[in-house]
């Protein structure tokens, strides 16, 4: 081993070495200067691009308001402008944060009988449809019913015991398809940070949120976000698309698409975003889960989660979780059977296991596996359209 010697003790370098020094120094300095704009500014730039221009928002707001103004008025005449008491807005996908729900809209009840008023109030939104929640349901003992209701959204959550497994239901009726929303961590596709479902739900003012497909965890199917096809992976997966009317549209894992074909499909069907996990559990009211599937360990007993469409703008979010006193789990076939019995038209499996979480007002409703939420990359959520 050679001992360290200070520079002044070392032999004089050759002429080539002496020339190489300054050249290398200049080159290194130039490289360092070039590095400055490249490093460290990544997330900021992307987020700036995804946040809509504020002047554009004001312009749109003014545009909306002007529709309520009288078209003709005599000069100098004071004209009262009357806006609707509660205005149900169409939410924009580019707005990362939804309106704040009304605090007085949330509540809890101990029994279904206490919820008769809820059914009546929700009738305005239901427009002839019926709630799945009601007198026929057998609630898990000790588990409260939780709800939220305003002029644009009605949500009720409850738990039922099926065998030894606890099913948590969240029934949602919304006024507009834009209230069914998708949020990716940090508000952009491809972001690194993972959050718990409840953290993301709080940050976007979700009335009801569910863990999504954990898109950062796998590379399958067609990923659509904000109406744009972001990725078309070669690994197959049943895909659930949500269009501008809030309808669930399915493609099956054997339907392959190129990037261009996928974008054409998205444009043609006004798709806003996709969920890629699966499998599809119910289509046209019929059970259709496959015997085997690449994602989600369908044949093992595990916590499950699903998004179901009961009718127009009417949904159920369901999880099947073990709880300390009821430790049962379900395979996908048992889960599909339970889901189809709800009478839903369509149902699609979301990421289960420790991911499966439902949050109302930013608080967990179901009992997540191990009692701890897993940090994930995305949620789906339902927002109010009349809040502040």
């Amino acid at each position, binding site marked *: *081993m*050679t001992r*360290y*010697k200070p520079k002044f003790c*070392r032999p004089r*370098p*050759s002429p*080539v*070495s*002496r020339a*190489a*020094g300054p*050249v*290398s120094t200049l*080159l*290194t300095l130039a*490289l*360092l*200067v070039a*590095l*400055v*704009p*490249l*490093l*460290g*500014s*990544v*997330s*900021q*730039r*992307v987020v700036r691009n995804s946040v809509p221009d504020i002047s554009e928002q004001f312009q749109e707001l003014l545009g909306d308001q002007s529709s309520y103004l009288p078209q003709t008025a005599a000069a100098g005449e004071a004209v009262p402008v009357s806006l609707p008491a509660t205005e149900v807005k169409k939410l924009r996908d580019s707005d*990362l*944060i939804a309106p704040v729900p009304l605090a007085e809209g949330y509540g809890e009840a101990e029994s279904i009988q206490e919820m008769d008023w809820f059914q009546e109030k929700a009738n305005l939104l239901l427009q002839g449809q019926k709630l799945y929640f009601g007198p026929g349901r057998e609630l898990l003992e000790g588990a409260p019913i939780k709800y939220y209701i305003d002029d644009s959204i009605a949500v009720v959550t409850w738990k039922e015991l099926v065998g030894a497994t606890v099913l948590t239901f969240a029934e949602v009726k919304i006024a507009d398809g834009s209230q069914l929303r998708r949020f990716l961590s*940090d*508000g952009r*596709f*491809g*972001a*690194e*940070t*993972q*959050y718990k479902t409840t*953290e993301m739900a709080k*940050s*976007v003012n979700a009335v009801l949120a569910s863990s999504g497909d*954990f*898109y*950062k*965890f*796998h*590379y399958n199917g067609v*990923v659509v976000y904000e109406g744009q096809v972001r*990725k078309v992976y070669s690994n197959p997966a049943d895909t659930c698309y949500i269009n501008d009317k809030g309808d669930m549209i399915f493609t099956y894992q054997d339907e392959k698409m190129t990037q261009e074909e996928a974008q054409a499909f998205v444009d043609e069907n006004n798709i806003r975003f996709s969920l890629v996990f699966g499998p599809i559990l119910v289509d046209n009211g019929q059970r259709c889960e496959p015997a085997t599937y690449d994602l989600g360990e369908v044949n093992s007993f595990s916590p499950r989660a699903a998004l179901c469409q009961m009718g127009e703008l009417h949904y159920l979010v369901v999880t099947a979780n073990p709880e300390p006193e009821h430790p049962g789990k379900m395979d996908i076939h048992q889960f599909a059977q339970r889901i189809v019995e709800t009478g839903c038209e369509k149902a699609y499996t979301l990421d289960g296991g*420790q991911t499966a979480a439902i949050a109302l007002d930013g608080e967990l409703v179901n009992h997540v596996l*191990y*009692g*701890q*939420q*897993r*940090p994930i990359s995305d949620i789906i959520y339902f927002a109010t359209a009349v809040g502040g």
Partner: protein
Amino acid sequence: MDRIAFIVGDTFIYWSSIILTLAAGVAICTFLALHRGQGTTAAVVVPVALVLSVIFGRLAHWYFRPDGYESFLGAMTDYTSGGYALLGVFLACLLAAGLVKLLRLEDDLPRLLDEMSLAGCAGIVVGRLACFFSAADRGQILEDIHNLPLAYPVNNVVTGAAEYRLATFVIQAMVTAVIFGGLLLFFLLGKRRKSGDVAALFLLFYGMSQAVLDSTRYDSLYMRSNGFISVVQLSGAAALVAVTVLFSVRMVKARGFRPWYVALWVAMLALLGGAGYMEYFVQRHGDRALFSYSIMSLCLGSLAALALGTYLLARHRE
């Protein structure tokens, strides 16, 4: 959010960019100060390592986070957006060192790696402090602790609200500073030290620290094949195991085989398994993170101490 230092034309220059560039500068200066080989070696290896670091840092980032980019070509040609992985920088430095060896500009590659390890260590200490100017440090949200060095406020990118998160990068900087100090003393004053020993010890201790600390991050790079296995943790553990094997081989060569070595290796495996189990445990029981990380640190620290023991035993005879 990243804090803007100044604006040049259409380009925003962020404080974090300046700190990271400063970190690269510190690494280069440290290397030049410690370098004992030909000046030509330094003149070639520094710019080559710098350029390769940008390329391989991006390549590694793209590989483990492909959905952050439009395409591979876009990732490798557009450096105005996207990220970099430190793992790629390590690989780039190794390649740069190998290149000067191939060009016969350097005879003692292990010694060059010793110097580069220390330089990298110094750079990491400074570079991690860029977290004070950005929202990049994403440890677990802490409800009760709101003070440095354990926690500090990071703005939520969506709401702008301050979240007190575990200051993973600050802790990484502090741990790496301790490693740097110890290795520098060993480099300058260590007796009977062989070329390459400092690099091996750097891999041992830095790998150990990363295997624990990366688990506390909420924005780790994950394996493509399994979204729950952190690439940095896996690489850290691999480095730890590789160096342990290297030291064990040296010990056997220097002292001959003794039966109690088997017990030692079994103990090492058990410690590694214990650390692995604690990672499995903490992913499921996040509320018991303190317990999990304490046990994990204890396991990996003991493993590193045993590996260091084998090194000392080998060196004693060598």
